[in-house]
């Protein structure tokens, strides 16, 4: 909480945590102290399902540069998928 910089986003999908797969509810994106990455501050993403308690969490912690590259890569992959017409096959995972 030393920076208190955090944003939440609702998401659909699955995450594999310590107890196996669970349904994801939201992602908490913060720029604050990581638990493990050897950095004072990191871009942290916690994929969680709060209805299942604090342990329903998939965590990643990365440097700012890595996070920016990851964002670019995700968007590039989605662009390719869109160009290839694959996004039309998307269906609501919770349906």
């Amino acid at each position, binding site marked *: 909480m030393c920076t208190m910089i955090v944003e939440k986003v609702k998401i659909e999908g699955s995450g594999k945590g310590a107890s196996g797969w669970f349904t994801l509810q939201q992602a*908490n994106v913060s720029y604050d102290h990581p638990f493990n990455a050897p950095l004072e501050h990191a871009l942290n993403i*916690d994929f*969680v399902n709060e209805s299942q308690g*604090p342990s329903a969490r998939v965590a990643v912690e990365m440097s700012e540069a890595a996070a920016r590259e990851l964002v670019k890569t995700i968007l590039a992959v989605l662009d390719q998928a869109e160009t290839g017409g694959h996004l039309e096959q998307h269906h609501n995972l919770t349906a």
Partner: protein
Amino acid sequence: MYQTDMYEGVLAETVTLQGANGDLINAYFARPLGSGPFPAIVLAHHMPGWDEWYRETTFKFAQNGYAAISPNLYFRAGHGTPEDVAAKVRGEGGIADDSAVGDLEGAMKYVRSLPYINGKVGIFGTCSGGRHAYLAACRAEGFDAVVDCWGGGVVMTKDKLDAKHPVAPIEYTKDLPCPILGLFGEEDSSPTPEQVKQHEAELKKHDKNYDFHMYPDAGHGFFYYHRPMYRQAQAVDGWEKIFAFLEKYLCASA
């Protein structure tokens, strides 16, 4: 100071106490064996949670003659590993200042109720815990000394204030009733050296008893031996300063 022919014993266990709003929360409590009287210290854990470092540090204070208690400030977030619980709190933008102050006051009252206390209670915190320790010392009556280690967010701009953190801790400086020791690193970004200077100026303005140290070649969290920010020489010196400060202000019977 410990001598090799001395008897030493510490009792350390999880206890339950009444925190903010009368809620029951848990706490890690460690005290020297014996009838005392012992000075007491409350530990305000850091943003990474009520974790192993804080249990170790609570035990360290007990080994050094203090009845030490570290309340679980994240109790209301639920239970799991300290990291998972702390991540949940991080995702919620931290805990409310009123909640932290109430829990720390509850821990202070818990140790004050014990028959082997000398009547003096200090408070120690690092990172967000340094900030919480300062807030508790200013707002809850009953602390006799405060140790603020690199507490970020004591100085806050108005845009950082929200419902959970409605008042910048520096605004409470006039109410600080006890001496304060502050340990900081020159390379820290929260608090920055400039923010530490502002805090120091406010303490001076209100004629408070303060002792601030700004360490070169150190940033945030330079006591944390399990993190890359650990700085050996600064950490050793910092701990010496902490125990000398507490000895001065907590070890004389009330």
